[in-house]
C-alpha cells in the first residue's frame, strides 16, 4: 500500500490532539508558576509541594480504597450477571439484556445527585424509612456508601466483557460438564468463568482504572463528609490558593496518569491474551441454556433488585425532586408539588444555552466525531504498517486520561496557543476535548463495523477498477452506514451525559448540562440541578429508545 495523505493525515491529527495536551501538562508541571506568568521558570517545586501534602496523601489513599472496594463488588456481580444472562434460563433474559447496560449511559453526577435526594440524610426514602421504621439503616455519606454505589453502578462494565467472552465460548464445553453430572453453579465456577478468566482479569483492571477516574460520584457524595479523592482534590485545588495554581494542578493530573497508564497498558496486553484463549464456537450453533431450577425466580429478583437500585432509585429521586418545591421532615408530598423549577430554567439564559449546546454537541458534534473516528479507522483499515501500530498506541493515551484532566489540558492548550484563543469560548474547544476523551470508544465502534466488511468486497471493487477513495465511497462506507448510524447514537448519548470534560472549559458559550450541574452543585441550587438532570435523562432516554428500536447493539 502506498503512503497517501488520506492515510497519513488522520494519524498526524491523532498524534497532535493526543500528545499536544499531554505535553503541555508535563511542561506545566515542571514550572514554578502558570505558563502565562512571565516569571515562571523550570522547577520541581510543584512536585515537592504536592507529594508532601497530607491532603493529597489522604485523597490518594481514598481513591485507592474506593477503586479496590468497587472492583471487589463489581467484578463478581458483573461476572455472575454475565453467566446468568448468557448461559442460563433466567426468565426474560433476552428482554432484560439492553436494560442491564442502561447505567453506562447515565451521567454519574446525575445518579449521585439522585442518591442524595433519594437516600441521603433527608432523602425521600430515608424520611419514609424513618417514619415507618423509626431509623435510617444506611449512611450515604461514608466511604462505604460511596464504594457500594460505585461498585453497583460499574457492574455493567464487567458484564459487557464477561458476557461477550461467554458468548464466544463453545457451549459444548459446558454441555460436556453437564453430561458428566455438574449442576449450573458448579459449571459456572469450574468451567465457564475459568475459561473467560482473561476477560475477568481485563474487567478487574478496567474497573480499578475507572475507580481512579471517578469524579461525579465522589464530588456529590463525598462532599458533605469532607471526603476527597484524586479527581475532586484536583477540582478543589482550583479554588484553594486564590491565584491559579496551574503547576500544582498539573502535578495532581500527572499523578493520576502515572497510575492509569500502566493499567491501560496491562489491559491492552490482556486483550491480546483473551483473544488467544477464546474457544470459538461454530456458527449458528443452537444450545440449550443451563436450567437454574428453583433458583430461576430468586435470581431474576436479584437482578431486578440491582436494576432498581442503580437505575430506578436514583432516577426516581431526581424526578421527584424536580417536581417538589422543597423537601424535609414533616413535609407532605402532595402539598409541595410544582412545575416551577422547569419554568425557572427558561429564565436563566445560560441554562437554556446549556441545553441547546448539549443537543448541539451531541447531535452535530457527535456526527463530526464519528466522521473523525471513521477517517482515523479507515486510514489504518487493511493496512499493515508501523504507522498503524503507532496509532494503536496513541489511542491508548486518552483512555488513561480522565475527562477532567483532558478538559483541563485542552483549556490550557487554548490559552497557550494564542491563535487558538478565540475558539476557547466556543463549542469547538469543547468538541475537541470530547472527541479526544471518547476516541478509543468511538474507534472501537467503527472498527467493529469495519470488521463486518469482508475484504473481498473491497478487492472486487479494486479489480473492477476503483481507486482507494472510490472503494471507500462506493463500497466500504455504504456497507457500514448502519454501523455509523449506531455509533452516532451511542456517541450522542455519551456526549450528552458527559460532565467532567467540560468543567474547566465551562464559560459563556460553552455551557453544557453536565458541567452546569457540576458548577451548580457548588452553589446548592438543588431545584435547578434536579430540573436539568431530568432534561438530560430525558434526552439520553429518547436516544436510547431510538437506538434500541433500530437494533443498535449497546454492548460495543
Amino acid at each position, binding site marked *: 500500500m502506498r503512503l497517501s495523505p488520506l492515510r497519513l493525515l488522520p494519524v498526524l491529527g491523532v498524534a497532535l490532539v493526543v500528545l499536544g495536551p499531554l505535553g503541555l501538562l508535563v511542561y506545566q508541571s515542571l514550572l514554578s508558576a502558570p505558563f502565562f506568568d512571565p516569571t515562571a521558570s523550570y522547577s520541581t517545586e510543584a512536585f515537592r509541594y504536592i507529594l508532601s501534602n497530607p491532603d493529597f496523601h489522604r485523597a490518594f489513599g481514598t481513591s485507592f480504597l474506593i477503586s479496590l472496594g468497587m472492583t471487589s463488588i463489581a467484578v463478581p456481580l458483573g461476572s455472575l450477571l454475565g453467566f446468568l444472562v448468557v448461559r442460563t434460563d433466567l426468565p426474560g433474559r433476552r428482554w432484560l439484556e439492553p436494560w442491564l447496560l442502561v447505567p453506562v449511559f447515565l451521567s454519574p453526577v446525575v445518579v449521585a445527585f439522585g442518591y442524595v435526594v433519594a437516600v441521603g440524610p433527608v432523602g425521600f426514602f430515608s424520611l419514609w424509612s424513618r417514619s415507618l421504621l423509626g431509623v435510617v439503616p444506611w449512611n450515604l455519606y461514608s466511604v462505604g456508601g460511596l464504594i457500594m454505589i460505585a461498585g453497583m453502578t460499574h457492574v455493567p462494565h464487567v458484564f459487557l466483557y464477561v458476557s461477550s467472552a461467554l458468548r464466544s465460548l463453545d457451549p459444548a464445553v459446558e454441555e460436556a460438564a453437564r453430561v458428566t453430572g455438574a449442576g449450573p453453579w458448579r459449571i459456572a465456577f469450574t468451567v465457564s468463568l475459568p475459561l473467560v478468566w482473561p476477560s475477568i482479569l481485563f474487567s478487574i483492571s478496567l474497573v480499578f482504572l475507572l475507580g481512579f477516574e471517578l469524579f461525579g460520584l465522589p464530588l456529590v457524595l463525598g462532599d458533605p463528609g469532607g471526603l476527597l479523592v484524586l479527581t475532586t482534590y484536583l477540582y478543589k485545588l482550583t479554588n484553594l490558593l486564590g491565584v491559579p495554581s496551574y503547576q500544582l494542578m498539573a502535578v495532581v493530573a500527572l499523578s493520576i496518569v502515572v497510575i492509569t497508564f500502566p493499567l491501560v497498558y496491562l489491559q491492552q496486553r490482556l486483550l491480546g491474551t483473551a483473544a488467544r484463549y477464546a474457544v470459538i464456537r461454530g456458527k449458528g450453533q443452537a444450545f440449550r441454556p443451563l436450567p437454574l431450577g428453583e433458583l430461576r425466580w430468586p435470581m431474576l429478583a436479584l437482578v431486578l433488585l440491582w436494576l432498581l437500585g442503580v437505575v430506578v432509585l436514583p432516577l426516581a429521586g431526581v424526578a421527584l425532586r424536580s417536581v417538589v418545591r422543597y423537601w424535609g421532615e414533616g413535609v407532605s408530598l402532595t402539598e409541595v408539588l410544582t412545575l416551577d423549577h422547569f419554568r425557572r430554567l427558561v429564565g436563566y439564559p445560560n441554562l437554556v444555552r446549556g441545553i441547546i449546546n448539549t443537543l448541539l454537541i451531541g447531535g452535530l458534534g457527535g456526527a463530526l466525531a464519528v466522521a473523525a473516528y471513521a477517517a482515523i479507522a479507515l486510514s489504518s483499515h487493511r493496512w499493515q504498517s508501523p504507522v498503524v501500530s503507532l496509532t494503536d498506541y496513541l489511542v491508548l493515551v486518552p483512555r488513561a486520561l480522565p475527562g477532567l484532566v483532558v478538559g483541563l489540558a485542552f483549556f490550557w492548550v487554548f490559552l497557550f496557543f494564542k491563535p487558538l484563543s478565540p475558539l476557547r469560548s466556543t463549542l469547538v474547544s469543547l468538541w475537541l476535548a470530547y472527541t479526544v476523551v471518547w476516541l478509543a470508544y468511538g474507534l472501537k465502534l467503527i472498527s467493529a463495523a469495519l470488521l463486518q466488511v469482508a475484504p473481498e468486497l473491497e478487492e472486487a471493487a479494486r*479489480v473492477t477498477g476503483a481507486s482507494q477513495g472510490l472503494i471507500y465511497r462506493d463500497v466500504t462506507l455504504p456497507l457500514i452506514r448502519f454501523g455509523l448510524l449506531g455509533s452516532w447514537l451511542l456517541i450522542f448519548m455519551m456526549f450528552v451525559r458527559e460532565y467532567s470534560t467540560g468543567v474547566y472549559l465551562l464559560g459563556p458559550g460553552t455551557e453544557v448540562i453536565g458541567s452546569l450541574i457540576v458548577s451548580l452543585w457548588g452553589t446548592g441550587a438543588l431545584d435547578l440541578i434536579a430540573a436539568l438532570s431530568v432534561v438530560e435523562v430525558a434526552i439520553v432516554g429518547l436516544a436510547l429508545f431510538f437506538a434500541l428500536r433500530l437494533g443498535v447493539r449497546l454492548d460495543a
Partner: protein
Amino acid sequence: MPELVVENIQKRLGQTAVLRGVSFHLNQGEILALLGPSGSGKTTLLRSVAGLERPDAGRIELGGKVIFDAASQFEVPAERRGLGLVFQSYAIWPHRTVYENVAYGLRLRRVEEKEMRRRVGEVLEQLGLKEMAGRYPHQLSGGQQQRVALARALVYSPPVLLLDEPLSNLDAKLREEARAWLRELIKQTKSSALYVTHDQIEALAIADRILLLEDGQIQQEGTPEQIYAQPANRFVAEFMGSNNRLEGKLTEIQGEQGCLEGNGWSLWGQLRVPKKQADDATALIHVEQVRVVEGPGRNHLRMQLRSAFYLGERWEYLFAAGDLKLRAWGQEPLPQRDCWLFVPAERLWIF
C-alpha cells in the same frame, strides 16, 4: 500469442515460502486451470496476477505490457490492470442491485448511460439473469449470485478472466451443470481465463491446459489427458484420480519396464523415474485400470475378495492376498470369493 506471461513468481509469507518461482503463460482464448491441494499457493498466484498480492520476485506481462516487475520495483495497481476476477465467495456488493453490481465496472470506465444499459442488459441476458436486474443479492439463490459475480467480471470484456474456485460454493448437482456452461460461456465470449480449483474433475472438464501446483512449485503442465495419463512424478500420479499403491523391491529391469516384487507377488510396470535393480520402489495404478479377469497370465494376480460396496453407478471391490491390497471397480456384484485380477503393465507406474 500469449495474453499473459508469468515469470518466476516468488512469494514469502513470514517464514513460509508460498510460491517458489512459478512461470507460465496463458494464450489468447485459452482456459488454463491452476490445480492443486489447499496450501499449494494457487490462490496466491491468482491474486498476484490480479495485483492483490505483491510477489517478492518475478515479472508479469499482460497483453505484451509489463504489469509487474520485482527487479525494477514496477507495479501497475490492481485497479489499473483491467482484469476480471470472480471470487470464491462471489463478493457481490450486498448494498447494490444486480444491475448496479454489474454496471459498476462500466461506470468507472465512464461508459455513457445508454451504452452501459445495453451492455449490462446483454451480459445479464447471456447469463440468464435478465429478470433479476432489480433484485438485491440476498434475494438470489447461490447459483444466481455466482452468475452475477461472473457477469460483473465479464461486462467490461477484460483481456483475462481470473476465477478463484468459482463453483466451490454451489451444491454438487449444480456444480456439474455449471462446469459445462461455464466452459461454453468463456469460449463464446472469446475470453482467456485463469481458473483456480482444487477439484481435479473440474479442472479436467473445464481447462484446455492444467498447471498442477504443489508446495509453491509447478509439478506438471499439460493438457488434461497428459496430466491424467502421463504423470511426470509421483505427486502428480497420486494426486490425480483414485489410486492403488504397492510397495516392493525391483527384481528385474528390461528397458522401460521393471518387475516389482512383494511378499508373494510380482508385477511388471513402467519405470517413471530412473531406478536400479534391487531398489525399493512404489507402484501406482488408477483403480479403474485394475480389471477382474478369467484365468492366470502375465501380470495376473489371484486375490481374495474382502468386501464390495455398491456406489450406484458402479461397484467397488476390495481384494487382498497376504499384505497386498487392491481396489477395483466393476459393474456387477462378484459371486465368487477368489478372483484373478489383471494389472496392465503400461498403466502401473513405478516411482
